[in-house]
């Protein structure tokens, strides 16, 4: 196998990608996903943690407290989020319907120490963004009330949970897990999936466009051609994955060990690319190869995710900076699989190449 031949093939494929401007599409795709996921995050945060948007936190919501006297009124009045009015229920609900109030609360005449629970009725507006925010804010008040009621009834409890005091959080950290534990491993790994789909296209194209004979007649051998295509796809992975990491960092998401992450992605993507190459060599036809490969991909990825300290988990841990020396073990295991797959690909390609030369 000659390095020069490999680079000729790889260069040819890259030229194809640039000529067709498919690379432009890939970049657009990346930007689009980045845009959408950041927007999605802002949207979800603002909805479920409204205080994160200062605009909402300055606002006081009008609510009515109706029914009987209780400690509830005191809690509501001491909350900075609400302006509380004592009203009668029917008037309150009518004002709510006209949006002069954000919520109406009815408190029954149940004693705090009664056998029965206290059932508070909360009236809010259907299908409304604002009432979703009010709900979140009211929840805090209700939780405080629940805690105190529980304290009043404490004698009736038989078992107490282990007490642990947690300091008050100062906001933030809400979507850390979403970003580092899902978005980053998926985004960084996506180029590997794209590259493995690409290698199938490149190989089956030679068969279906019947350009194979021309290629074989040059000094380049069949297996050199296969490895050249694998090389081209493999080179795309660090470029794309690196672009992702850069985009994320530009977005203000600090990523530790970016270099090690790239190393892991580049190595484990080779497994997928080789699997793709083997499938393509076997079927020689795009529809079948892509179908089988993508189904197999789902199986493989599900299986890998079910294993502890899998490569994807390692990406998460590298990104947050908690990965230990076991990363080298994972890398070695991945390398082992690559050697086996590489050997299989080489043998298969040689066999196919021979039959072509013979035929």
């Amino acid at each position, binding site marked *: 196998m000659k390095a020069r031949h490999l680079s000729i093939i790889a260069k040819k494929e890259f030229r*194809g*990608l640039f000529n*067709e401007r*498919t690379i432009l599409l890939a970049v657009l*795709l990346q930007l*689009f996903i980045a845009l*959408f996921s950041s*927007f999605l995050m802002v*949207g979800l945060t*603002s*909805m479920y943690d409204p205080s994160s948007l200062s605009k909402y936190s300055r606002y006081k919501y009008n609510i*009515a407290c109706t*029914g009987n006297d209780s400690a509830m009124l005191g809690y509501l009045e001491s909350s900075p989020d609400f302006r509380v009015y004592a009203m009668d229920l029917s*008037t309150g609900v*009518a*004002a709510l*319907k*006209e*949006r002069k109030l954000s919520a109406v609360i*009815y408190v*029954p005449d149940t004693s705090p120490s009664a056998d*029965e*629970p*206290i*059932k*508070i*009725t909360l009236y*809010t507006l*259907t*299908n*409304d*963004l604002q009432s979703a925010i009010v*709900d979140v804010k009211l929840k805090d008040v*209700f*939780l405080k009330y629940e805690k105190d*009621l529980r304290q*009043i009834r404490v004698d*009736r409890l038989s078992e107490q*949970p*282990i007490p642990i*005091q*947690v*300091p008050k959080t100062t906001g*933030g*950290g809400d979507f850390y*897990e979403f970003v580092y534990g899902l978005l980053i491993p998926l985004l960084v790994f996506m180029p590997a999936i794209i590259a493995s789909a690409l290698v199938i*296209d490149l190989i*089956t194209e030679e068969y279906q*466009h*019947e350009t194979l004979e021309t290629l074989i007649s040059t000094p380049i051998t069949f297996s050199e051609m296969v490895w050249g295509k694998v090389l081209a796809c493999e080179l795309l992975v660090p470029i794309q994955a690196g672009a992702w990491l850069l985009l994320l960092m530009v977005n203000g998401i600090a990523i530790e060990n970016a270099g090690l992450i790239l190393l892991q992605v580049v190595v484990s993507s080779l497994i997928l690319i080789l699997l793709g190459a083997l499938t393509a060599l076997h079927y020689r036809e795009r*529809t*079948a190869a892509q*179908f089988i490969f993508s189904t*197999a991909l789902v*199986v493989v990825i*599900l299986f890998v*995710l079910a294993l*502890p300290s899998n490569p994807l*988990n390692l990406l998460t841990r590298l990104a*947050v900076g908690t990965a230990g020396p076991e990363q080298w073990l994972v890398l070695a295991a991945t390398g082992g699989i690559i050697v086996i797959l590489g050997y299989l690909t080489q043998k298969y390609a040689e066999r196919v190449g021979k039959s072509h030369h013979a035929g």
Partner: protein
Amino acid sequence: MGRLTDISTIARWEVKKSFTMMSREVLPVAVVLFILLVAVTGFAAQTGMHLQDGMYEVGVDDPEIAQLIASDARFSVYQIDTATLEKNRNAFDLIIIHGQVYGNPTERAKAAQKTFERDYAKYVNTVYNRETDLFAAYPLWIDVQTVKSELTFLSTQSGQYVQAAPSRKAPVPEGEISNVPTPSPALDFTKEELRQELFRTSAKNTQISRYTEVLSSESTMGRFKTPSQLSPPLPFDSIILVFVFIFPLYFTSQFFMMSIMNERIERKGEVLLSTPVASSSIIIGKMLPYFIGMVAICTALTLYVRAPLIIILPLIPVIVFFLANALLIGMLSRSFKELSFISIFFSTVATSYLFFPSIFANVHVISLISPLTLIVLSIQGDPWTITDYLYSTSLFWLTGAVLFYIGMKNFKEERLFSEKPLLPRIREFLSGIMSRRHPFLSVFLLTGFSIPFVFMVQLMSLTLFFNLPMPYSLVLLLIFAALVEECAKAVGIYTLFAQDPSFLTWKNLIAACAATAIGFLVAEKLLLFITLAQITESIFGSILFLSLGVLWMPLLLHFVGVLIVACSLKFWGQKGLVIGLVLATAVHCLYNLYFILGWIG
């Protein structure tokens, strides 16, 4: 009659072809893979997903607490004696000494603390769930009653507050006060029913709910909750289910795409084209098996998950839309890799359009722009109306139909086997549907039919920008909406110009611009009239579809916009397109700004 036979012959031929190709080698492997998939899914369900293991590091001095935390694989727990722990507190995200949690100020530590809080709350709930006196452990229950607002939704739903000015006095309703019955203090469920429900919700610790733990899961008790369960419901389960429906559609449309592409490789489709069968029959015939297959898959899935069968209705326009796009992608791309990238790009964009709005299904009316929201609603058991259906599917029907029309007009030799780059090909396709004898009528129609696409893109930007804080979202939306409209209007003129630059004499130029402006306006008004009244009434809508009031003003605007583009094309040729678009967008923005500022301020 002959047409039907043609179609059915081609459909049968298509089925036979793909089966002979698939059955020998692919089918056995596919069956094996399917069995493996089931096995792996079972395995994964048992061991759980290990994507986020060991994200956080915690140091604890108490073995009991260490055990409690270690039950969550996201934590790496180190049990160390108190003195060492105090010395090395920066080595951990959290340390717990004598039952007191201390956190680092880093983002990771904050996230760790939040996660720990949720874990702890869950643990506390499991302890309380065991109590014999359930109402001592859960002394407070909230009965949530929703009230329909009598005002139109447009104000608050668009992110504006229309509350009365703050006052010391309680607000007084202006309308009639109807009597609201006093709620009874008694619970509607027995203690054991409530306990079962508490068990059920606390046992729900799937991978998905990790992200939704902030939010509570839907309870079968409906609106009856403990305070900790009180949060707006995120319909995650139904959304995952929806994904199960959409995913096979991608696969099947891929097959259709490939079947079209295969006709073009090495001119294999020449035989088909040389038969006296109309190209529309060929396309319909080739598409039919895939269409039936997709509907069958969806029906089978619906029956399998025991969802109401009515969810097929909103899926059909989605299927048509996918197939129409698959047809064009198959006809446009020059190589397999181009096909892959374009289809990946298309499916990402389509997924975002379909998927993200439906996340807000319970919260915001905007979500109705996606047909998937209707599916989420059906699965939840909420009804939807014919208007809702029209509203969320009409754009899919229309764009699907237009794309099919373009495909049919261009399904001929010189287009299918040409090897030109993507953009010139798209332009060729467009000129394929323009009549040379009636250029102005063509421009009129082309612009008119671009309206559904314009609306689709604009609605997509609406969901995108809706999430931003108010002034930015308005400004971005303003610019983007103007740009999209100007681009759509430029398409017709540009196609005319590319066909024959000498066509654009001053007289023809003015006429073409007028045709474009009128076409745009007529189609815009027509579509708005039918469907989008809901959105147009909100403040976001007012930017997108501002021009509802007087007719001659928007007509003039559209005319001026397209005239700028046309003139710069005439002066600077191809390069003038970008300049013209930028100028036209700027003019359009100024116009919109003037009106909205005049309106709001």
